[in-house]
């Protein structure tokens, strides 16, 4: 990959994202052809078109792109920090912490009196898990141990979520939680966008600011430090940015797996593997990928609409296996 080709990559990704976003506004239970879509966008469309566009499609498109960007960006940053291509927010427990927090908000009934409690509790859950990981990282715990610890945290939050389901007062509450956990962008309103987007945007800014440190970290910790990088600060930056980006994302959409793992791998060959460029590419790529996945969910001829989290896991898990096998092949 030459420098010129990678310079073209970000604009190309922006173009792709724009195209799939437009498609996601047009496609759904009721297709809106381009002419009518444009009219509705500038405020001259029919009442029905405008209603579908502004009440249903736009919030869903914004959330899909934002959540995808959060997952892709956080995955790229965590992989860069741990110098391990198998890390993602879901694997290290950040997503698990966020869904546990959100489930607790559901379970305790706080959601009925205070709807914002779900994303807030989700963020708090992600923050608790990231604080534990950051604490370990700050004391110089080895990366391999850190990853395993994250896997254990992921299991623990999963277990606690199961406990909440086990103790749920009614089958109806269980169903509500389970469906929420599957991860979906359906029926989300502008309110969800307003709740989640600001924190996510702050998280993105923090994660993108880590680009220079992650570039230096290509050379290992000692060489990165000799280039003027403060390792403790870099670790905390990535951990905090991940919590801010992923916590609200999981809190408004439920668990959407494998986007954070897969996207950086898809981006890396196009940007010469440079960790700083992988961040930008993964943000745009994650946004485009989740938008496409949600588009597939909407046009798939299934009796019950699939949850987008189910689709990403079905595609992502085999990809992950393939990746492990290929890495092992290279190591031998």
């Amino acid at each position, binding site marked *: *990959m*030459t*420098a010129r080709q990678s310079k073209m990559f970000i604009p190309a990704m922006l173009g792709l994202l724009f195209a799939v976003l437009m498609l996601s506004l047009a496609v759904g239970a009721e297709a809106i052809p381009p002419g009518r879509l444009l009219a509705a966008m500038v405020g001259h469309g029919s009442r029905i078109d405008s209603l579908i566009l502004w009440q249903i499609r736009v919030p869903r498109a914004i959330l899909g792109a934002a959540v995808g960007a959060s997952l892709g960006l956080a995955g790229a940053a965590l992989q860069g920090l741990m*110098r391990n291509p198998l890390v993602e927010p879901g694997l290290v427990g950040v997503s698990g912490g966020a869904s546990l927090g959100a489930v607790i908000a559901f379970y305790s009934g706080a959601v009925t009196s205070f709807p914002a409690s779900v994303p807030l509790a989700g963020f708090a859950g992600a923050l608790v898990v990231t604080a534990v990981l950051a604490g370990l990282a700050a004391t110089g715990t080895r990366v391999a141990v850190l990853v395993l610890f994250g896997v254990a945290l992921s299991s623990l939050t999963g277990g606690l979520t199961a406990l909440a389901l086990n103790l749920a007062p009614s089958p109806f509450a269980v169903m509500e939680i389970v469906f929420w956990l599957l991860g979906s962008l359906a029926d989300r309103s502008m309110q969800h966008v307003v709740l989640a987007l600001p924190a996510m945007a702050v998280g993105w800014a923090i994660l993108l600011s880590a*680009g*220079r440190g992650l*570039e*230096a*970290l*290509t*050379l*290992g910790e*000692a*060489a990165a*430090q*000799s*280039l*003027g*990088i*403060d390792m403790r600060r870099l670790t905390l930056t990535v951990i905090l940015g991940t919590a801010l980006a992923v916590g609200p994302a999981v809190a408004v959409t439920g668990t959407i797996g494998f986007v954070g793992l897969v996207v950086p791998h898809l981006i*890396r060959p196009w940007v*010469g*593997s*440079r*960790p*700083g460029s992988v961040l930008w590419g993964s943000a745009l790529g994650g946004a485009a990928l989740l938008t496409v996945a949600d588009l597939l969910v909407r046009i798939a001829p299934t009796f019950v609409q699939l949850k987008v989290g189910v689709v990403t896991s079905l595609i992502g898990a085999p990809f992950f296996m393939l990746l492990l096998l290929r890495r092992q092949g290279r190591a031998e």
Partner: protein
Amino acid sequence: MTQLTAERLTIARGGRDVLSGVDLSVAPGEVVGLLGPNGAGKTSLLRALAGIDKPRLGRVTFDGCPLARMGPTARGRTIGFLPQPPEAAWPVSVEDLVALGRLPFAGPFGRRDPSDAATVEEMLIACDLAALRNRPVTSLSAGEASRAFLARALAGRPRLLLADEPTANLDPQHQLATMKTLRKLAAAGATVIMSQHDLPLASRFCDRLLLLGEGRVMVQGRPREVLTPGNLSRLFGIVAHYETGPDDAFFALPWSLVPEAPRDDIVDL
């Protein structure tokens, strides 16, 4: 004129002092070698001199300024560090790897000065990497890769280069080429401090050697003065064979193990 000084350094690792009472002053243009058995604290000393680890006691100054009071960016622009083994976590191209050496000079938002590209270009040519510039560094042979990592460290134009075993795992040609490059850097006014396990290379290419052992700097001086039978026996438990090269250069060659426990009465310190 001294450039780098270390005063009464005590360096701890894992809660234990590995080196104590290290005093050192190095002038620009000097090439200093650290010798000692595995675990003697060579890497720890290099890391402390680079400002990566804080010494438990004592201080390091560069141009009269304590390292602890130098900002991380200023330190990055002044001091180069070449770790062993060098590492590339991602398959970045050789050119991108070398450009990482210019990172401390990048402006806010990673903006690069045009002169950075010229410096990278110069290092690619100096280290004979021009033909490999687009290759992923992870696909290179050990010799090619070590040239790329050396070029990365040189790209920052360090005034002090700390190199941990820069010739480890290299074939003879690349060992000599690396030592020549380091001497050239020193000739241009930089200070070079390296750890070395290779006695002939250390005796030929270093102006001064520090023998690290028993938790301290046992002795320092010109290679001819410190690579004595007594010191080598005490430090490594070896007997060396001494030779003079065609250019009248002194060198010591590890020859055999000391047959019995070293005797205290043949100390040459």
